[in-house]
């Protein structure tokens, strides 16, 4: 499937933050000096052994890394094809991969002397992770969250508040993740002196897509070592769900130049990409500029952004990280979609067969596994990023299944 003749797929971004034609720094002038400062601080931190030691320490003793690579025997047996492994990111502290990135950014904020942390959240996983690390380091934390998401992710709202964060409801636009991002950017513009904006995914202006990827790539680095230990070779395929795409890029990035590894990113198909009600920016969108970067977006003919639709609040975003847009156009990663219904089925199947209740987000990845695994040979090794646990989703799923709790 690799159509590009590039020597490496790991070279991006360039100095201006571009992955091919994607990425960049499309922000208001007020923010520009802050973004340049952040870039400088990150460039210095990432080559500083002390910074790495600090991250490694908290990753091990606070987050609980490395997360296991688990062979899923009953799901493998059920599908009767590919040998399925789970990268157990749901076992991290706070129950998702999000904390890998948050720990990195908050440690960077501390280095920069920033005392006030803001974040946006969709499903609430990034908000919870940010609230958690802010509690750990005694930093005031403000989380912007769309009113629609607040209603469907009540447990996470409460978790954030328990840890001392202020959750500010966002009532503009579609009242979901994209609007929370707008509101966080507005806060940042108004509080430039002391505030660090902790973005939750591999989107936003440069250097965020690169920085968040770097903080998440531990997922793929561990996976590589673990699969080599378990199987003595690299996997044949990787599967991860994609909203903004941070868990996916974290798993994919270390494998991008291993061209024998097929890589699948699974977008949220909502009611079906053909219905127009979905969150599949690559499968059903086109290039545009939003939230500081050029990427694939759901938009109309006049360049107005459309609302995304997905049962999963974490995937309900009309854009995608610019590196994914580039990996899509270069052909290195294959992007597919799974519908709400398919994700719900996979959610139940995994719960029943493996005793692991996955979040609705990785249930989309599992839904793709259900489509392809049965047809693959038994020696095909497939790694799925189980990027979050499903406790937060039980109310949503119960409602979708018509169960009264």
């Amino acid at each position: 499937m690799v159509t590009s003749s590039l020597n490496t797929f790991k070279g991006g971004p360039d100095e201006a933050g571009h992955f091919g034609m994607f990425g960049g720094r499309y922000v208001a002038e007020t923010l520009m000096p802050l973004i340049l400062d952040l870039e400088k601080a990150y460039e210095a931190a990432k080559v500083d052994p002390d910074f790495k030691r600090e991250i490694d320490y908290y990753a091990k003793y606070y987050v609980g890394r490395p997360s296991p690579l688990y062979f899923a025997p009953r799901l493998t047996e059920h599908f009767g094809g590919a040998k399925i492994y789970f990268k157990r990111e749901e076992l991290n502290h706070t129950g998702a991969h999000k904390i890998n990135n948050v720990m990195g950014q908050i440690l960077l904020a501390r280095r920069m002397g920033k005392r006030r942390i803001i974040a946006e959240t969709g499903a609430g996983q990034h908000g919870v992770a940010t609230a958690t690390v802010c509690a750990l380091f005694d930093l005031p934390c403000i989380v912007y969250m769309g009113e629609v998401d607040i209603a469907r992710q009540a447990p996470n709202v409460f978790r954030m508040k328990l840890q001392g964060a202020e959750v500010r409801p966002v009532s503009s636009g579609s009242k979901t993740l994209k609007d929370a991002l707008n509101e966080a950017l507005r806060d940042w513009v108004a509080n430039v002196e002391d505030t660090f904006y902790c973005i939750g995914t591999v989107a936003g202006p440069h250097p965020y897509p690169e920085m968040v990827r770097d903080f998440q790539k531990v997922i793929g680095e561990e996976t590589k070592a673990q699969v080599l230990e378990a199987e003595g070779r690299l996997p044949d395929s990787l599967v991860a769900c994609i909203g903004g795409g941070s868990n996916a890029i974290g798993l994919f990035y270390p494998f991008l130049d291993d061209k024998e590894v097929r890589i699948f990113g699974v977008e949220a198909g909502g009611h079906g990409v053909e219905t127009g009600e979905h969150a599949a920016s690559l499968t059903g969108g086109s290039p545009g500029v939003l939230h500081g970067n050029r990427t694939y977006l759901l938009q109309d003919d006049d360049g107005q952004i459309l609302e995304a639709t997905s049962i999963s609040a974490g995937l309900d975003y009309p854009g995608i990280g610019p590196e994914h847009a580039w990996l899509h156009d270069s052909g290195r990663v294959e992007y597919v979609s799974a519908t709400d219904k398919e994700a719900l089925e996979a959610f139940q199947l995994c719960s029943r067969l493996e005793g692991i209740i996955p979040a609705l987000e990785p249930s989309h990845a599992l839904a793709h596994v259900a489509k392809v695994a049965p047809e693959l040979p038994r020696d095909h090794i497939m790694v799925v990023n189980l990027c979050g646990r499903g406790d937060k989703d039980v109310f949503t799923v119960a409602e979708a299944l018509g169960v009264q709790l």
Partner: protein
Amino acid sequence: MAANSNAAAAAADSGRIRRRFEALKAEGRGGLVAFVTAGDPDRATSAEILAGLPAAGADLIELGMPFTDPMADGPSVQAASQRALAKGITLRQILEMVRVFRQGDDETPIILMGYYNPIYIYGVEAFLADFRSAGADGLIVVDLPPEEDAELCLPALAAGANFIRLATPTTDDKRLPTVLSNTSGFVYYVAIAGITGTKSAASGAIDEAVTRLRRHTELPIAVGFGIKTAQQAAEVAAIADAAVVGSALVDRVKASLDAEGNAGPDTVSGLLGLVSELAEGVRSARKD
């Protein structure tokens, strides 16, 4: 004043912005830049407002191009954009509004202000061609800093549009030359670090900022963000070359609408009345 002295590769522009600031200077006063959102509350009413602005005392007009995700705007301009989009305004229709306006007024500069994506989707080349032929003069695109000049700024200058950049309290002396390098027409100083329509800056801080800007540029300087009253407009116009008022105007539109969000009997007259008050304010503040 050589308005375009530092613009790179600029084709001949319409000259309206330069002529207007020269006239203001000759009159010995600062100007009023009135911001309204195109298509708010509907196309016909918006066109009527636009046509009435010069007579009400607006020296320059900023016409907002609505975007679904206006991340530098506060609640007032966000709501105005939503109202206009709900009534179906498109970029093509906005350019048509400018064309119609120009048939009745060949002197008042029109600056289109918005975000990049609708222009990108329209197609930069097609947009600039239609922009010029419609009779628009300047462009302010909030999410295109100098780092992305190749996208629209350079093609716009080459096509004879004035590309007006925002300078902000976070733009320090080191960065100012970068911000000013491809700016033409005038410089828009954002008086506060923040979004539109919220805080107001102290006039002392504005004075200091304008003095600092004048060390770096000969372009006229307009100051905006947080100016709501005739008195504030007068204070700013006494210091800068023009005062920009936006949120207060779109709030006046909003206050005049009926429960369904449709234009009321005094939508146009109320808005133009407020513009007249602001215009009197800036005219009362004569410069030395």
